[in-house]
């Protein structure tokens, strides 16, 4: 189906593989104050591999969404292997980004955020981040980013050459009791897949601390009834 050999960097096969590499990058380096987005694919190629499956070689740049267009672009290279198994299995990614350690550290913001919400009294709870108009309070932004990073675990796992995921919105955030000095957050996220145009709902339990980063402990796919007749009043 798809092409083998050199790929056009602006065409979707290279873009989809790069997005998978981005999800991987965010699972490892995302935080309440850092989420990476794809800036551009520079070069890409793909080849079938012996065990079955297709391996993409990518050269691309990423930016931190937090810094906006002002931020520096990081150059990355990645191998993304989409296995060809009977049942879907997660792509495998090997990733290297230049100067990852040199970008401005968010340690201060991370610590302040952690100290604020690790307290036993903290019971953050919110819905619809952002609202229908794209608004979200400044307080909610790090939670949105955490949800986005946690969602990256799911998007990475669920990706194939026939999907292209983004997080459409966070339906809800409910802080759970902290455990082992980790912030514990239950998210319900809505993911958007380009080819099918479907909105997919997932509930997940994630932990975070400045030292350990984001971990996803539980995920649960949730059925939606968006296609039914009027929503229940």
């Amino acid at each position: 189906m798809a092409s083998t050999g050199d790929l056009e960097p602006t065409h979707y096969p290279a873009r989809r593989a790069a997005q998978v590499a981005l999800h991987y990058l965010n699972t490892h380096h995302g935080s309440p104050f850092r989420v990476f987005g794809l800036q551009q694919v520079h070069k890409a190629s793909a080849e079938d591999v012996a065990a079955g499956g297709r391996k993409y070689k990518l050269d691309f740049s990423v930016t931190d969404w937090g810094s906006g267009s002002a931020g520096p672009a990081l150059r990355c290279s990645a191998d993304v292997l989409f296995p060809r198994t009977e049942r879907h299995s997660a792509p495998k990614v090997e990733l290297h980004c230049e100067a990852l350690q040199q970008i401005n550290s968010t340690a201060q913001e991370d610590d302040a955020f952690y100290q604020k919400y690790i307290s036993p009294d903290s019971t953050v709870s919110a819905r619809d981040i952002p609202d229908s108009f794209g608004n979200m309070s400044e307080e909610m932004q790090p939670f949105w980013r955490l949800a986005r990073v946690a969602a990256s675990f799911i998007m990475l796992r669920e990706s194939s050459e026939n999907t292209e995921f983004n997080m459409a919105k966070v339906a809800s955030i409910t802080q759970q009791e902290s455990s082992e000095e980790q912030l514990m957050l239950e998210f319900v996220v809505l993911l958007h897949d380009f080819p099918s145009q479907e909105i997919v709902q997932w509930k997940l339990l994630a932990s975070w601390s400045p030292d350990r980063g984001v971990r996803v402990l539980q995920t649960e796919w949730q059925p939606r009834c968006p296609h039914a007749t009027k929503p229940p009043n």
Partner: protein
Amino acid sequence: TMKGSIMGVLLVLALVVQDRLAGGLELKSYDYTKYHTMDEISAWMNQMEMENPDVVSSMIYGQTYEKRNIALLKIGLNSTTPKKAIWMDCGIHAREWIAPAFCQYFVKEILGSYKTDSEVNTLLKNLDFYITPVLNMDGYNYSWIDSTTRLWRKSRTPGTGNCTCVGTDLNRNFYANWGMVGISRNCCSEIYNGPSALSEPEAKAVTDFLGMHQNQLLCYLTIHSYGQLILVPYGHPNISAPNYDELMEVGLAAAKAIKAVHGKSYRVGSSPDVLYANSGSSRDFARLIGIPYSFTFELRDEGQHGFILPEDQIQPTCEEAYKGAMSIINYVHDKNFKSAAITVTATLWTTLTALWISSTNVI
């Protein structure tokens, strides 16, 4: 006396204020940097027509499933000779709110500049613009109900047969390789192409209008989000438009114009190349019936906000998309109107040269 004249001034002021308030809309100007409800957009369309009667008229060209009148604004200077036209529609997909916002912005821009900007004036002189701010009115209205409906995409026609789900993807419902690729026969799917081609009254309305005006129409622009793309026909991977090379050139020039505004990159290509294969799209239908310059715009962003683009990005998105659209429109206009002037000049030179040669031969 002093007191009397102050009272007089106050009285005049009070009357003026009352008069402005009675006028209603004139005092409150429309906010193009906010998302608007379907009712607000319909009222705005009436306002545009009322405020600019010499260049704006509205046309109702169909009805949605929920019996709303599908309307467009026809914008252009009156002419004694028949004119060529540009079509633009926004909001085929309900959740892509930035698209109707752009149509409104586009109308505002050309109406606000045609008297002073000679380029825009020439466009309105030679062309009519048919602009539909919201095509999928039912779906758009539904997406405003609450946060659970915000991400609705399709029309609101109920399912047929055993189907308990609602809606057909209008952009898979057109008579353009209908059902061939990039669709689902599952009526609950977001890319369900309908029980049959043109089952949806919204798609039928556009089809009928384009068919009736196909000799006039030079350019078909359909506005969507998200992805930052300019798509050329066709959605089927094995079919290429005969003017594909030219369409790519024009699309790339538009992307360059977009980038010059705020630095945003828009990728250009056929749908099967840069996005995914699909069939039954309005863009493909327009090209198939012979409208030569047919493009889909996918506006901001690239996935960070997706469909729920924050309102503070409406203005910059519209600014860049306007430059992109104008790049295409100017190309199409110049190809059809400037060449006439060149032909006249060339004929003149040929005649003069012939006369000179014959006059020298006589000697």
